[in-house]
Structure formats: structure tokens, C-alpha cells
């Protein structure tokens, strides 16, 4: 393991995924990958198209359980068979597709699967709208369209609904799959601020992105994947952007790559 060198204190990772394997019809989408994530840390997961990033995090979010391998939370082995089980463990996911039900409003989406109920066993829509307004005040104060189906919202507004859903339920681990891909500069800055804030609250964040600049801005460590395998995990301050690019493209670690090859990237 390349990432074991957390300094001095023996901390237990919030999440550890060991030797995860996922195959789709004979293709090893994820082939024996081991990564970990500490509380209050942002780990960037990078790699080209088809590197297996999304498949790896689907194993953690419960969307597609792994064929083999082990997942530990705070040192204890857990099984995650579906999204409900992941959420019960405090693992929240913001999907690249956002995974919103287009035909219902922001509050209904935020509480989807975890609705607030009244004493009489009916949906407490007012309480859910109230909670949504409060979360939105923090995440996106301009958000006003609480009664509209999310289909009628802009990209940024939809993104805030997806983020609100993930952060409202006291997540321990937050998986963000390309969180800024659909956003403009102002909205991206907003997400950046949010990540910093969530990090300071002790949440572990797994950030998937193919934008190397994003990852360098936000991540503490960077795990690089190539064709289903983990190339390596490095600390941000130990590497340059070029070196990470080399890992992404050539699948080689720092000490394996020559200056000539690095120069060839440009």
C-alpha cells in the first residue's frame, strides 16, 4: 500500500476498500484496487475514461456491490449490498447524473427514501420543505423555487438539490462524482467552498474528477487509476501536476517515470 504513511498518529481510516474487484461480463472494470480515506480528508480519484473510477465508487455507494474485496468503516468490516445500506452507514453520494426524480420538488428529492412523517403516518411536507429551505439558505441562498419540479430548475439549482440531499443527513463519507462538471465558474467556486467547509466538519470526501486542476485545488491525496487498476496514491504536496498526469496516462509512479517522458507530455 502506498498510502499507509499517515504521519505519527495511528489513525484509523474512516473507510478502507481492500482488493476490490468488479467485473462486467468478463471485463475487469475494477481489478484489485485498495484505497482509504481518513476523516476530514479529501481524496481525489482520477483517471481517464474507462479507468474504473465510477465503478469503484459504485461499490462503496451500494449502487453496484463488488464481486470480491473488503470494505471497512472505522476499522470494522461492513457489507454494502444496496444504496439503503450505504446510507445507513453514513455514506452519501452525489452522482454525476445527480439522480434526481425530475417530476417532484426539491424537498421530495432531498428526503427521497427518508421522508419525514407526521404522527399519523402521513408525509410531513411542510416540515420537509422547512428543512429544505434551511439547508438551501446555507448552500445556495438564491434558491427560491421550492414548489417546482426539479425538471424546471437550472443546472446549478439541480446540483444544489443533489448536494443538499447528501449533506443534510450527517454524512461520514461523501462521494462526489464529477461535482462541478455541469457548473459555471461561480457555481464551481461555491462547491469548492462547500468542500472546504464539509472537510472542516470532519467528513471524509472522495472526489472523482477528470479535471486535474480541480483535484489539485481540493484534494489532500490523489489516487490514480488506469484500466481498472490502482496506479498509486500520492500526497498532493509531494507531486507536481505533470507527475500526476504521467500516472494517469502512462500508469507509472514518480520514480519510474523519466524526465524525458515527462517532457514528452507537453
Amino acid at each position, binding site marked *: 500500500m502506498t498510502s499507509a504513511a499517515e504521519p505519527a498518529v495511528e489513525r484509523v481510516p474512516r473507510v478502507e476498500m481492500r482488493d476490490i474487484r468488479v467485473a462486467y461480463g468478463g471485463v475487469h472494470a475494477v481489478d484489485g484496487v485498495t484505497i482509504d480515506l481518513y476523516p476530514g480528508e479529501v481524496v481525489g480519484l482520477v483517471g481517464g475514461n474507462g479507468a474504473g473510477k465510477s465503478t469503484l465508487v459504485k461499490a462503496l455507494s451500494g449502487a453496484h456491490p463488488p464481486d470480491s474485496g473488503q470494505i471497512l468503516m472505522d476499522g470494522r468490516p461492513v457489507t454494502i449490498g444496496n444504496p439503503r445500506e450505504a446510507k445507513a452507514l453514513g455514506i452519501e453520494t452525489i452522482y454525476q447524473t445527480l439522480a434526481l426524480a425530475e*417530476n417532484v420538488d426539491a424537498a421530495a428529492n432531498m428526503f427521497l427514501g427518508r421522508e419525514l412523517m407526521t404522527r399519523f403516518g402521513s408525509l410531513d411536507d*411542510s416540515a420537509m420543505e422547512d428543512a429544505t429551505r434551511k439547508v438551501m439558505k446555507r448552500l445556495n441562498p438564491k434558491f427560491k423555487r421550492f*414548489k*417546482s419540479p426539479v425538471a*424546471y430548475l437550472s443546472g446549478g439549482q439541480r446540483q444544489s438539490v443533489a448536494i443538499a440531499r447528501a449533506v443534510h443527513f450527517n454524512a461520514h463519507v461523501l462521494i462526489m462524482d464529477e461535482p462541478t462538471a455541469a457548473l459555471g465558474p461561480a457555481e464551481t467556486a461555491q462547491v469548492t467552498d462547500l468542500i472546504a467547509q464539509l472537510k472542516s466538519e470532519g467528513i471524509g470526501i472522495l472526489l472523482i474528477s477528470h479535471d486535474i486542476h480541480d483535484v489539485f485545488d481540493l484534494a489532500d491525496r490523489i489516487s490514480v487509476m488506469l484500466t481498472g487498476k490502482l496506479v498509486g496514491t500520492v500526497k498532493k504536496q509531494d507531486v507536481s501536476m505533470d507527475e500526476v498526469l504521467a500516472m494517469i496516462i502512462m500508469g507509472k509512479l514518480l520514480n519510474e517515470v523519466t524526465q524525458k517522458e515527462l517532457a514528452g507530455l507537453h
Partner: protein
Amino acid sequence: MAEASTTAPDLVGEGGAREGGTRSLRSVVTATEIDFRLIGLFAALVIIWVTFHVMSDGTFLTPRNLWNLSVQTATVAIMATGMVLVIVSRNIDLSVGSMLGLIGVAIALIQAEILPPIIGFDNPLTWMIALGAGVALGAFLGAFQGFIVAYVGVPAFLVTLGGLLVWRGAAWALNSGQTVAPMDSTFQLLGGGARGSVGEIVSWIIGGLACLGILALLINNRRQRRKFGFPLRPTWVDAGLGVIGSVVVLGAIWVANSYFWPEGLARQYAADNGIEWPVGGLQIPTGIANPVLLAIGVAIVMTLIATRRRFGRYVFAIGGNPEAAELGGINTRWTILKAFMVMGVLVGIAAAVSTARLNAATSGLGTLSELYVIAAAVIGGTSLAGGIGTIPGAVLGALVMQSLQSGMVLIGVDAPLQDIVVGIVLVAAVALDTIYRRRLA
């Protein structure tokens, strides 16, 4: 969608509608927060009624005709409320007509042949056992089809197309195609008729309770909004909604109470109760028919299920985005199975009403009614693409369909032409709805 959001990102207020032109009307409608299409449906109904009234030389808008219309609408309305949930979940149920036939024959056999040797004819328990058996059988058949759709993964269109054939065949096989009659005398009251109605006083009491209910809903809505500090609807809007709702309810009760028992029945009633036959005849107000009351009750319960329960919320979420629903932690398969089961229960209730009204069951009962049920749901604003639909809309849709049919019968339109008109109206209604929705997006 993309256009609207780029031109006015955060500026559009709640409710969203912000277009030029018919702004004043729009803003009034928006203030009520009622679905614009529901109002359109009401308008269509009024136009249909007035047109037929004029064309039939004033016989359409009479208590007698409207009362009959309400009874004729009941079975389709009951089933349409369930069809809304099935269609919203991106499925379809083509089997409801055949299932109605099968359940009808089954519950007729129970009360005409199975129960009498055991507990005797006209036992007070008979109607309850028959109705309960019908509902249970419906739940079972619906759940069975739902299981194949949700857990085996066969498309609902195919599963219920199979059901359409199988249940109809089973209905025939159950009694070799022979008609089963007569029904238990208490059971018959489920079907309506003069005796199967609640009468004048109970009708007014129900009307009064309904008005109180409307008032309570409006007050509760305001209280909830105030409690959480959400924007309140203008007082005049709430007051107007209350008045309009109450007028419609009390008007309907008045119409039902203006329809009197047929003279033959009234004479018999007078003779049975030792009342001397008065000079002008005995006028006994009929009141709301039992099946209509049943349909209203079903519509209220189904509205609560669709809008106030987790199950309903999940059905809509699945219709909006099945993948998101699954990722959100919803047990989508179980939810879809339940939607089909609810549909089956409603078919069971409708089968009881149909057999009671006919006082017999034939294996052909309910033939083609799946089409009327689906049409009612769709005319009522349910999108076949899933995710969109309302229960009150489906009930209104059923009323529109039935009004068209009864009206054409009343003015003597030939049967083939009736079908042509109904078919055209169905397609036109959906076309209008599609255009409206596209403009909204």
C-alpha cells in the same frame, strides 16, 4: 427546459408561470396553486354538458339524467384512480376489464351457489363475504401480475395483455359461460338504484360534512404555512376556493335529492308502510347512490395514498426517474408490485358494484372497460410516459368519458359514430395536453 432556465435562472418566483399575454387569468389560476389542466377539464365538462343539454332539447341537465350519469361513472372512476398509480409508475394494466369479469363471476357464484347451502339465502353476512372475497381475489391477481412485472422483469404491457386473455377465459371457465343470478338482496344495494341510495337526509349530512372538510383543509393549509413561515395564499383565494367547493358539493346533493323514486317503487313503498297514496304522487328523494358514495370514498382514500403516503411518493419518484429512485434507497420492485395490487383491489370493488347493479354476472362483464379506464386516466392528465397524474383528474376524466357516451345515446347518435367521437376526443385531449406541457417546459 434548458431555454427557460437560462433566460430566467433564479428570478422566477414560486409556481413559476410567468408568461405574457393572458397574464391576469394566469395569475389568478397560479394563485390558487391548482393544476391548470384540472381547470381545463372542468371547463371541457361544462361545455360538453351544455352542448348536450341544448342538442337534447333540455333533457341532459335534468336530475334524472345526471343521477344516472353519476352511477354509470362510478365503476370506471373507481378503477381509474388505481390506473393512475400504475401508469405513473411507468407501467400499464390492460387486464382490468377481464379481471373485473372473472371477479364478478366468482363473487356471484359465492353468493348464489356456494354460500346459500351453508348459511342460507339472504344471510346478512353474505354481502360482506362476497365483497371481501372480491377484494381479496383482486389483490391476489393484481399482486401476481405485479410480481411478474417487478421481480421477473416482464414488461407490464405483455403481462397484462396475457392477463386480459387468461382472466377472461377463466371467467368463462368458472361457470361454463353461463350467467349467474340473482345476487343477494343486500349486496344489490352496492349497485345503486332507488333503494341502493342513501336518501335525502343522509345526503344533506354528507354534503354538510364535505363542506366542513373543505373548510378544515383550507384552514389547516394556512396554519401549516404560517407555522413554517411560508408565503400564504391571498385570503380571497382561499375564501373563493371554499365557496366554490361548497357550492359544487351542495349543488350535486341538491341534484341527487331532486331525483325522486320511480312511481312503481314509491307505490310499493307506500303500500308496505301503510301510507295512503297522495293525490300528486309520493315524491321520495333518492339522494346519492351507494356506488357513487363508494367511488367518492375510493377517490379520497386514493388521493391520500398518492399524495400523503410514502408509497404514493415512491410511485411518483419511480415514474420520474427509476434509477434515481433506486439510488435513493427506494425498494422499487416492491413499490411496483404494490401498485398492481392496489389496482387489483379496486377492480374487486368495481366488480362488486357492476354485478350488484346488473343483479347478475356474465363472463363478458367489463369487456373493453380497460380502455375506458386508461382513457379516463389519460384524459385526466396522467402521462403515459410516467411520473405525472392526479386522482381527481382521473375521476373527472371518467366523468368526461361517461358524459360523452350518455349524451350521445341521449341525442340518438349511432353506436359506430359514438366510438368514432370517443376515439377522436381521446386523441385530441392528449394532443392538447402534450402541446400545453411542451409550452410549459
